[in-house]
Each structure stands twice: as structure tokens, then as C-alpha cells.
């Protein structure tokens, strides 16, 4: 008796019967074929006893076959995951290198360079941590906002935060988190969060026009008395807002230094690049 065979193979067991482990299409099945090619005669007790043994042997063989296939799929999945995680890791490293270059170009002193670089890498690393937890489900924009404010010791009562659930995919989350970081730092230094009065309102809404759903994100400061002392050169934050977000995510953006404080808007398309499929389609379907 030879209980293990591969797909399609017919395993001879006794002179009376044989067992096939899989059918021609590759699907798992157990076939019993009587050796004389006829099944008109009712099987004898002896045959039925043999059938019990055969069934057990066939089930074990099928189980081994399935295990082998599962193991094969797991190995292939592991290989893909290794490719993907290596890709992600290298992309994050590339992003870090870009941040280092940009920070170096605009820093006035080694101290300022170190300070800004550490803070930016901190913001990126917080986003990576969140992304590792949520996976493909995406990061809630509100979580990005609150995490960034908390990291900079900004209390909830200092800002008005409001907006619906929007889950951002990795790249959108990273860029938005860094943008929020730059806006928060700027506001702490010169704006509404600097303790000289003024309000910061961080609000977003979703809507759709024709074929696209979008998120309108607004960072509005008001009542800032001396916003004019803020540096007017284009730094890393403005580059993120005015170049990175439009280039990578097709966002329409605006950054203004008004007498009352910073007005920044990011109009982000909600599509497969920026959010997960169900959210993008749900927003379109409901017509909000």
C-alpha cells in the first residue's frame, strides 16, 4: 500500500480498488475505482473493510498535499513581504536623506540644523509607528493632528479640532504629518500657539464633485498680533505644502501669512493613492 501520491496520481492499494488523490482539474477529491471497472455488483464486506482503510489513507494523503501547498504559498508570501518591507524601508531612508539635505540647506547654524533635523525625524518616526500599527487600514487624520500637537506639548484647549473620519495611506500620512509638524512648530514660534494670544483652528471636511471625492483641510490662525516677524523665506514646511503635496498627491494647496496668522489649506483628492478603497468609494457614493 502506497498512501501518498500527488495531484492526479492514481495510487494502487489493493487488487480490488485504487484511489485518486485529485481530479484532472487539480481540485482535491477522493475517487474510488473498482479494479474490474464495474460497480454493478454490491461490494462485499471484505471490500467495504478495505474501503475504510483506503479512506483513512486517502484523507491523510490529501492532508499532506494541502499542507505542502500551504507551505509553498507561505514561502511565496514571505518572499513578497520581504520585497515590500525592503522597499518601504529604503523609501523611508530616502525620505530621511531628503529631509537631511533640505534641513542642511536652510539651517543657519549647526545647532539649528540638529534641532530641526531631530524634530523632523521625530515626526516621521511617529508616523511610521502609527502606520505599523494600523497597516493598510490607513491613519485617521485626526490621530495625525492630535499626535503631532501632543508631541509638541500643545494642549487640546489651545486649538479647535474638527472633522470627519478620513483614513490616509502611508505616503499621504507621512507628508501630511510632516506638514502638520512644520505648521505646529511655526505656530509655536511665531503664531497663535506662541502664547501671545490668538486662536488656531484645524478643521477638515469631505465632499465630492463630479467624479472625485476630496478632503478640504484647513489650518487657520487668527488674532496673532505680530505675525509679520515670522521669516518669509520658503522653508521646508512651505516646500512640503507648495511642492510635495501637489506633486505627489495632486493636492491643491495654499499657504498665506495674513496679518492675523497663518492660513493654510490643503485640498486633497481622496483616491487610491491617498486613502483606502472603501473610504474613497463610500465618500463618492454618499455624495457628501
Amino acid at each position, binding site marked *: 500500500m502506497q498512501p501518498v501520491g500527488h495531484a492526479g496520481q492514481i495510487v494502487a492499494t489493493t487488487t480490488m480498488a485504487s484511489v485518486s488523490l485529485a481530479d484532472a482539474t487539480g481540485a482535491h477529491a477522493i475517487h474510488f475505482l473498482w479494479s474490474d471497472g464495474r460497480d454493478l455488483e454490491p461490494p462485499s464486506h471484505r471490500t467495504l473493510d478495505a474501503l475504510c482503510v483506503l479512506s483513512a489513507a486517502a484523507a491523510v494523503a490529501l492532508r499532506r498535499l494541502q499542507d505542502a501547498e500551504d507551505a509553498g504559498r507561505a514561502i511565496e508570501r514571505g518572499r513578497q513581504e520581504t520585497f515590500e518591507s525592503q522597499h518601504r524601508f529604503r523609501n523611508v531612508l*530616502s525620505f530621511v*536623506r531628503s529631509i537631511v*539635505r533640505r534641513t542642511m540647506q536652510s539651517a543657519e547654524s549647526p545647532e539649528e540644523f540638529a534641532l530641526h533635523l531631530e524634530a523632523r525625524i521625530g515626526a516621521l518616526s511617529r508616523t511610521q509607528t502609527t502606520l505599523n500599527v494600523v497597516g493598510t487600514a490607513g491613519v485617521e487624520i485626526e490621530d495625525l493632528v492630535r499626535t503631532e500637537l501632543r508631541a509638541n506639548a500643545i494642549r487640546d484647549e489651545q486649538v479647535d479640532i474638527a472633522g470627519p473620519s478620513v483614513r490616509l495611506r502611508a505616503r499621504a500620512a507621512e507628508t501630511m504629518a510632516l506638514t502638520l509638524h512644520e505648521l505646529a512648530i511655526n505656530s509655536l514660534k511665531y503664531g497663535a500657539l506662541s502664547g501671545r494670544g490668538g486662536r488656531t483652528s484645524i478643521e477638515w471636511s469631505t465632499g465630492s464633485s463630479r467624479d472625485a471625492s476630496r478632503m478640504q483641510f484647513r489650518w487657520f490662525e487668527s488674532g496673532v498680533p505680530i505675525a509679520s516677524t515670522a521669516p518669509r523665506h520658503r522653508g521646508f514646511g512651505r516646500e512640503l505644502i507648495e511642492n510635495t503635496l501637489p506633486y*505627489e498627491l495632486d493636492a491643491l494647496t495654499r499657504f498665506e501669512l495674513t496679518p492675523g496668522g497663518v492660513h493654510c489649506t490643503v485640498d486633497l483628492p481622496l483616491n487610491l493613492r491617498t486613502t483606502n478603497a472603501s473610504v474613497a468609494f463610500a465618500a463618492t457614493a454618499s455624495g457628501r
Partner: protein
Amino acid sequence: MAKHRSTVAAVDLNGLRVLVVEDDYFIADEICSTLRRCEAEVVGPASDLQRGMQLLHEAQVDCVVLDVNLHGEISFDLAAELKRRNVPLIFASGYDAGMLPEALAPSVWLEKPIDLAALLYAVKAATHRPARAVLP
């Protein structure tokens, strides 16, 4: 600090038109400004495959620097089109070169983070420009 200049070696790419297809803004900007510093004319950059393909149809290019994964889309179809047209191609990717399909081998494959000096030499080699000494 603000006076920082890149230390990438001077390579003369004068007269070359290079299409850059890369979805990361900062990487695209670094590649483009490095190419421009060496006098190359940059076409693009294109942040997705559709735009990359469109630019390829619109402009005559001598070489293409191509990312592999653009917003989740793999660029091997565009790469195959370039092979058909005999346009030199340099991959710049966060993936391992092991994922390159056999039909596209051999191709120049630079792993991210990209060594910008290596990119310049690769562009020069791919376009068969005779070496010329350039003083910094």
C-alpha cells in the same frame, strides 16, 4: 550651512534630454537638479506612469530615469516600451534588482537611496557620450 553645495562630481551631460519618472517629490527634485547641474535638459519630472508615457510621446528623449513602483503601479510596461524604442533606461528603485523580469534584463538598476554620482555616470554611460574632463 546655507552655503552647502553638493559634492557630486562634475559630469558633462550637455545636450542630453533626460526624462525623469519618479513619484517622490524630493527624490525627483534631487535627481532633476543634479542632472541640470551637469547641463542635461530634464523632461518632466512625471509623478505617475500616465504622465511619463505622455511625455515620452511628446518629446524626443536620450535617456529615462525610471522609478519602479509609482503609487503602487509597477513601471515594467513603460520599461518594455523604452526597450522597443531603444531608449536607454536607468531604474531607480527601493526594490531589490532581483524583481526585474527576465525580458527587461540587463538593465541598469540603482537602489534607493540613490547615489547621485552613480546616476550621473550611469546616464553618461547609457548615452555613450565620450568622456571629457570638466573642472569643478
